[in-house]
Structures are given as C-alpha cells and as structure tokens.
C-alpha cells in the first residue's frame, strides 16, 4: 500500500520534506507545451470542500525534463509523472519522452481534468496511445462524473492501463457571498475535499469490481479511517489531496492512524481489507466474525 499525493496538490521542490513523507510523489500534470494556467481567482472554499481552477499550469515537457526531473530525482522519493494533453497524440508524445528514464517510476494519465478543454478522444483511446509509447507502469486517472465509471475503467484496463486512479475532482461553482458573482475567474472549477469521499468510495468500488486492477483511491481523505474505507472498496494505494493544503503533516498522521486502525482489527497489513466492502465487510476476514452485524 503506497501513500501518495494527488497530482497538483504538492510541489516537492518547494516542500521536499512533505514529499519525503510519502511513498511516492506524483507531479503536477505535465503537458507537451508550457501553460500559464488560468487567470486568478483560481481557488475558493465551498460548502464541504474547495474549488480549484488552476488550469494545468506547468513548464511543458521539455523544461520539466531539463529542470524539474533531475531535482526531483535527488529527493530520494519515487516519482510518478502525471501526463496531460488535448489529444491522444499529446499523451503519446509525452509518454515517449518519459519512457526509458530511470527517474520515472510510473506515469499517471490525467484524462479527467475538469478545468481545461477535454480531449476529443475517450479515456480508452488515450490509454491505448500512451500504452503504445511507453513500457512504464501506466495509471489512468478517471473522473467520477460519467454515467458508468465501471465501463470507463474496464475500457481503460482493456486498452492497457496497469492501474487506475479514482477520482479526479468534479465540476462545481461558488458565488461570492456579497456580489453573487462566481468567485473563480473560470466560473466553475474542480470540487474536492470531504464532499468527494462518498463519490470516491462508489467509483473505486465500481472500478475494482469491474477490473480488479491496482487502484489509487483519492477523494476527501483526511484520516486513516478514510484511507481504510477506500481500501475496503478496492483501493490498493491511497492519495492525499486537499488535506495537504491545510495540513502538510497529514501524510505522517494518516499513515499512523491507518496503522492503528489496522492493528486494532488484528490485521497485519491494511491491504488485508482490500475490497471487503464487496464481500461482507470485516466479518469476511479470519477471526473477525464478530463484525457480522
């Protein structure tokens, strides 16, 4: 079980000690060309969560490879590179540029950013194009805002994804309390935080049932208990997003809380509980029949 950050929720070069408290660092999404991102205002607190509309600000793949990646490699933390684009070819070219680089442990395809124009191709086609360009471990980060998450997950698996990341943010909007104008410059943005927890649980469970693939569960995790719930729904790793903003010590805290939850149940590994939400919960585990009702 790996504890990661959600892409875009940590800059390891500015806060290396936070990155080192994770099992792997996931970069902010990299696109073929540099992007300034969206104009301010880019963030807003909302009921039960927050909104962001950063818009994939990043230096582009060339500067990322020349300037950021060598410094990230020195941190001593495995690096997952989040890859984005506006067409399947964008993903393929960036994956090709990353293929063969020992500094890159895995690639996460961001096929679900709510703050930029979506690629015309679907997730499966993007995964297929990326798969043809790299032998790296390939995760597809999916949106929960689709009619059938399981179908998208299965299509990504059949296209060659080694794993899935669920969920990305979903689109939301907040109004200024005085003027009733949208707070964000782009009006709507990606909604994250505690409100995503039940959405993430449902999406992870559906994707796990459909594919059985390794899954990074992400969405509103604030405690070890929340991480355990994602694992029970089928996550094999857990990523922290919004909680990192308020609490950069959260990786260490969540890790400790998850270990305590696991130990209290008499389990040797949190992954012993993987997917048990589908099979009768804790009572399905040896020695835990007392949780039958």
């Amino acid at each position, binding site marked *: 079980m790996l504890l990661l950050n959600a892409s875009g929720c940590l*800059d390891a070069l500015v*806060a290396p000690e*936070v990155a080192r408290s994770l099992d792997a660092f996931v970069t902010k999404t990299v696109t073929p060309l540099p992007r*300034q991102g969206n104009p*301010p205002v880019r963030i807003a*607190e909302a009921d039960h969560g927050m909104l962001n509309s*950063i818009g994939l*600000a990043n230096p582009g793949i060339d500067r990322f490879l020349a300037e950021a990646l060598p410094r990230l490699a020195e941190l001593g933390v495995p690096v997952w590179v989040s890859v984005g684009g506006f067409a399947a070819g964008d993903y393929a070219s960036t994956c090709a540029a990353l293929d063969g680089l020992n500094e890159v442990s895995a690639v996460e395809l961001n096929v679900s950013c709510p703050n930029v124009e979506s690629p015309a191709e679907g997730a499966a086609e993007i995964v297929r194009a990326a798969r043809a360009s790299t032998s790296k471990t390939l995760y597809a980060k999916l949106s929960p805002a689709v009619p059938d998450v399981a179908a998208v997950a299965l299509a990504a698996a059949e296209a060659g994804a080694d794993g899935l990341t669920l969920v990305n943010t979903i689109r939301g909007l907040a109004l200024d309390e005085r003027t009733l104008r949208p707070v964000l410059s782009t009006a709507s943005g990606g909604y994250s935080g505690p409100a995503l927890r039940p959405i993430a649980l449902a999406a992870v469970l559906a994707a796990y049932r459909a594919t059985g693939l390794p899954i990074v569960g992400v969405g509103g995790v604030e405690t070890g208990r929340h991480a355990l719930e994602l694992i029970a729904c089928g996550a094999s790793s857990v990523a922290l997003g*919004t909680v990192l903003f308020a609490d*950069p010590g959260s990786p260490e805290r969540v890790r400790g809380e998850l270990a305590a939850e696991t130990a209290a149940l008499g389990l040797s590994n949190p992954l012993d509980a993987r997917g048990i939400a589908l099979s009768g919960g804790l009572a399905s585990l040896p020695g835990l029949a007392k949780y039958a009702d």
Partner: protein
Amino acid sequence: MRREPLRVAGAEDVGPYRLLRLERGSLDPGAPGQFFMLSPPGRLLPRPMSLCLAPRGELAFLIDPIGPGTRALAAAEPGERVGVLGPLGNGFRLDVAQPLLVGGGIGVAPFPYVSRALGSPPAILGFRSEWHAEAAALLPHAEVVVEPTYVTELMPSGHDVLACGPEPMLRAVARLAPSAQLAWEAPMACGYGACYGCAVEIDGRLERLCVQGPVLEAATCSC
C-alpha cells in the same frame, strides 16, 4: 513543515478588526512581512495572515472579519485552538536607508511588527472611515488619513517605501515610488507552494505569491 495547534490567549476589538493573540508554541515569529496560515475553527482551508505583533510568548494577528473564515477566526475564544503553519514567504527587506511605512485598511496588519524591527520609522496609514482608523492605535506615531484623502497624497519622495494595502493603493504607491516593496495578498489554500491558487503576474508571468512573495518589488509587478 508542521501545522501547530496554538491556544488562543486572548482577542480584542480594534475598530472593526479583531486582534487575535495566540500562544506562540514552538513557532518562530519570522521576519517582518512574512505570513502564517491560520486554520479557522470549523473551516476546511486555512487563511493567510501576516504577523501583526510578537508579544513575549505570543503571536498576534489582525483579522478583518469579512468572510466565513475570517469571521470564524475573529470569533475564536480564549482557550480554543487554532492550527497555525509558518512563518511563510519572504518578508520585507529591512536593509533600507530611509524607510517609510504606507498602509491602507487591513494593510496596517504587518506594520506594528515591521516598525519595531526598523526602530519606529515614519508611517502613513489610510482608512475608509474613522471607525476603521481606530486600528492606527497599533502604530501610534503614524500619520493617519481617512477617505476621501488617500495615503499617496501625503507620501514624501526620497524614501524607501514599504507598503501593504488594497491593490489600487499598491498600484498608486508603485507609480510614485517605483522601488517600493509591496506586500500583496491573494487567495491561498496552502501558503507553501502546493496549491498554485495564489497566482499573480510577476514580470509578465503568473507566479505563486506564496513562493515569490508576498513582498514584491514594485518594478516586477503588473502595476
């Protein structure tokens, strides 16, 4: 990098503002102009606040209760805990020959601490009303103006200006004093470079204010 839950030592009204005093814990007050992220009780995101005063064993922040987060901070009771991360950002350069502090509204917040570090240099504060101007008590030697008079009408030339206040004031100060140091504010979710929310235009590019600032040289800003 660790958020520390600091106990509220006390809080006093200063005009429409609230001076929130927290027990310091193990946190360093940092350099004048640096800021801290304060987690309001019951809210998801912390709010950036520059340090106003550093009494012995305490950190004091001037809060303008204008939204749900700042209202929750202003309502914090003695004994309650507030999560605090910091000090963050760069702070003012203090190696200046003829400092002049220029503050507008809640922009007075960092100057009591700055003033102590600089030996009480001259200061000009502007407020929108006499009620708001009660905050000038935090900087007793300052000249004070109330709208429709603006701080820029009193600014002498030849000084090294350190300014904090609303954007129109900072732009006006920058036109009069191109070498001024300006303390900006922007919505921030984290304060330590993680969220990319606090983008401002610096030298024509969008940069994170929490990483590059919050104090910027006037010449580099899109003024």
